[in-house]
């Protein structure tokens, strides 16, 4: 073709192009117009305005969206932060457009959002939230992290008390589901309260003991010999040989006392390979252990331990009432009562009380779990306390390292402490004389070779000492009146559960 022809073609093309181009341009113009509109809207939203409300506040928080409800031109959201939640409102107006309301209504539950809003007082109390007298009027809302649309469990169900669920036909979540999806279950206000209280217990324990002059130690958990009897230890492979996970820091606590530390305590994990599937046993739990040397009588040790426990209870009573009330909403229970100084009964008195109540048991028998519970009820009836100490247990039912009672060979200088009728601490004065220790070990038919290093630690000067240990999860469970120790353990371990 000649150039003209080509030109003609190009002209046509150009014309055709220009048509397309025109269309394109039109579309672009439309888009631009929309964009401009949106931008204008955003700009409008970004304008700061003066409200006549006295409760003017603007804050950006990273909150979770708990739930939404769309009602026509409005959308109600419940935003939650740890233990507290607040109602928020997105309404069509000069701040929010219809698209914004739709967007808010479609945010998946449990997503993390960034919100800018105005705090307003409400006339009617909002019953369903913890902050009952205010609500947020949202002006900006952005999603930081989106949650999946289908959640394995719903938080409203997780927080519903068991009785209520059955009555109204609504679901409650059972324990296994909770434990399998622990990350979501821990978000409930009840769980948040429980674990904050547990943190408080640990902190009060440390503070009280440090004030009394105790030194905190960390003991090894991989040990070469089973400390308390051998049957219930976990074995780990240790290079070419095997080692055990510590059942209790007993051995090392005592070595510290022999190393002239006078008063020590330690907070750390304890591993017990007991195949017990009960409401109060875990295979791994946090042990709070105390050991101290005393000057005249082992009651100094009991007084020290009970005073620490009473200070913990007082601290919880005075500073953690919000948490206790939150837990009580889902798991109602009686408040925890105690006496100061702590009530101390002797084993013979306990046996007499049980005999009076019609229980048959010998003077030197150990207390079975139902008897312990009954005794707890009897003590509660007479003295109105949930916490007490039982002193002078019979020697036959205690481990070999317990010091016998000098005045009565049938009994020993050992004690147990109970909360709400369940045992939380087993302690005693320890035998600090290597000859007596050897004799007691032989009496219990224990292989001396296995505990040789233990006995040797007392050969170079050992003061008389005693102590005991409590389980953090069990103490929290009993203080709050809960029924299963897995509720107070963040990621519980028992014979059937290894994850999460």
């Amino acid at each position, binding site marked *: 073709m000649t150039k003209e022809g080509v030109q003609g073609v190009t002209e046509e093309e150009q014309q055709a192009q220009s048509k397309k181009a025109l269309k394109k341009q039109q579309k672009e113009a439309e888009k631009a117009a929309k964009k401009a509109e949106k931008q204008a809207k955003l700009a409008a939203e970004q304008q700061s305005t003066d409200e006549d409300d006295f409760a003017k506040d603007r804050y950006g928080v990273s909150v979770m969206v708990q739930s939404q409800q769309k009602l026509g031109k409005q959308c109600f959201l419940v935003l939650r932060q740890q233990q507290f939640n607040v109602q928020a409102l997105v309404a069509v107006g000069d701040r929010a457009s219809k698209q914004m309301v739709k967007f808010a209504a479609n945010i998946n539950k449990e997503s993390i959002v960034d919100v800018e809003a105005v705090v307003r007082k409400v006339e009617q109390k909002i019953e369903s939230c913890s902050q009952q007298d205010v609500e947020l009027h949202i002006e900006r809302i952005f999603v930081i992290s989106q949650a999946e649309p289908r959640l394995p469990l719903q938080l409203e169900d997780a927080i519903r008390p068991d009785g209520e669920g059955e009555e109204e036909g609504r679901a409650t979540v059972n324990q296994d589901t909770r434990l399998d999806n622990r990350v979501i279950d821990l978000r409930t206000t009840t769980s948040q309260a429980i674990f904050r209280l547990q943190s408080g217990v640990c902190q009060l324990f440390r503070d009280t003991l440090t004030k009394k002059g105790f030194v905190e130690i960390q003991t090894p958990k991989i040990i070469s010999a089973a400390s308390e009897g051998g049957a219930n230890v976990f074995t780990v492979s240790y290079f070419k040989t095997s080692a055990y996970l510590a059942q209790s820091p007993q051995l090392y606590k005592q070595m510290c006392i022999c190393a002239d530390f006078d008063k020590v305590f330690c907070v750390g994990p304890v591993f017990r390979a007991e195949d017990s599937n009960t409401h109060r046993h875990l295979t791994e739990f946090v042990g709070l252990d105390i050991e101290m040397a005393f000057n005249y009588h082992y009651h100094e040790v009991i007084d020290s331990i009970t005073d620490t426990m009473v200070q913990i209870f007082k601290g919880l009573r005075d500073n953690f009432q919000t948490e206790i009330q939150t837990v009580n909403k889902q798991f109602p229970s009686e408040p925890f009562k105690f006496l100061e*100084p702590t009530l101390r009964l002797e084993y013979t008195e306990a046996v007499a009380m049980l005999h009076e109540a019609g229980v048959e048991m010998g003077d030197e028998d150990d207390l079975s779990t139902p008897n312990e519970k009954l005794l707890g009820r009897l003590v509660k009836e007479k003295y109105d306390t949930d916490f007490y100490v039982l002193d002078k247990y019979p020697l036959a039912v205690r481990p070999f390292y317990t010091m016998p009672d000098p005045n009565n060979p049938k009994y020993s200088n050992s004690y147990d402490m109970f909360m709400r009728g369940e045992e939380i601490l087993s302690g005693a004065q320890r035998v600090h004389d290597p000859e007596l220790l050897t004799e007691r070990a032989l009496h219990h038919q224990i292989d001396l070779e296995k505990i040789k290093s233990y006995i040797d630690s007392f050969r170079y000067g050992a003061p008389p000492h005693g102590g005991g240990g409590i389980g953090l999860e069990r103490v929290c469970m009993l203080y709050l009146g809960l029924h299963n120790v897995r509720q107070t353990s963040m990621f519980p371990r028992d014979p059937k559960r290894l994850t999460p």
Partner: protein
Amino acid sequence: MPMFQVKPVCGGDVKIDLPTCMYKLPNVHAQQGNSCSSEHALQNGEVDPAVKVLEARQDEILRKLYELKAAVEGLAKTVNTPDADLDVTVSSSFSSQSSSSTMLKGSTDLDTLLGKDLGALRDIVINANPAQPPVTLLVLHSLLCQRYQVLSTVHVHSSVSNVSPQLLSCLGPRHPDSYARHLFQLGFTLIWKDVPKLEMKFSVRNMCPIEGEANVARFLFKLLAPYPSDHAAATLVDSWVDTAFFQLAEGSTKERAAVLRALNSALGRSTWTAGPEFSLADVACYCCVLRSGSAASVPANVQRWIKACENLGHFGPAKLLLQ
């Protein structure tokens, strides 16, 4: 001919002693030398003369003791009357052998009153409100300590936030043997608790709780001495106790004045409130008079009687607490 010949292993003429008796037992009729001393009669009923002498000595000593006791009781009676010159308060605050322990006559046995001893400490638990300390019970506690071995403890319940140190030590210093509960006959546990009315618990299985300071005082007094066997006298004591707790302690000024007048006239007729013997009525009236605060402006007989009570020495802690 034999195949092998072996030398004889042992001689053929060993004499063997065959026993004639199959089993041998120790002689059951033989007298045991160092065994339990309760067995002192020989098989034929005769008593060892040495033991007889011992028994006679023991009887003699017991007789002497009884005579001494009677003499001391007589002395105590003369001392305890209001016009004695001897001031007992100084010497008898915590000495356990003061003569005033015998002023409460009549024998009482803990087993009959409180039930069979089950081998454990009999603990009396009293829940009191720190806003209204039970002063009569403190006096009775002091009397109980004279009579029995009492383990006293004070506790603060978790329903009360703090209690003054005076209330914490109102039962006196800690007993040195308090680490061994089984050494005591009676336990007295005072718990400061937020209760509307004072209550006492003893045996939760067999007894319901006792409410009210007057009633607990009656229970505790029965552990010290029985009520007068004469019904009229017993009723008089009871009526004075009630008057003290209702009108004297909680009544209006007019009622209190009326009671003080009645007390005055009663004391004009006899040494103590309800007759010639010291009784629960005196304890109750003394504490309520002091608690009402009108101890300074009382009639003459009542003043004299107050001094007599204080002479007995058990009202010291009460007075201290009410100041």
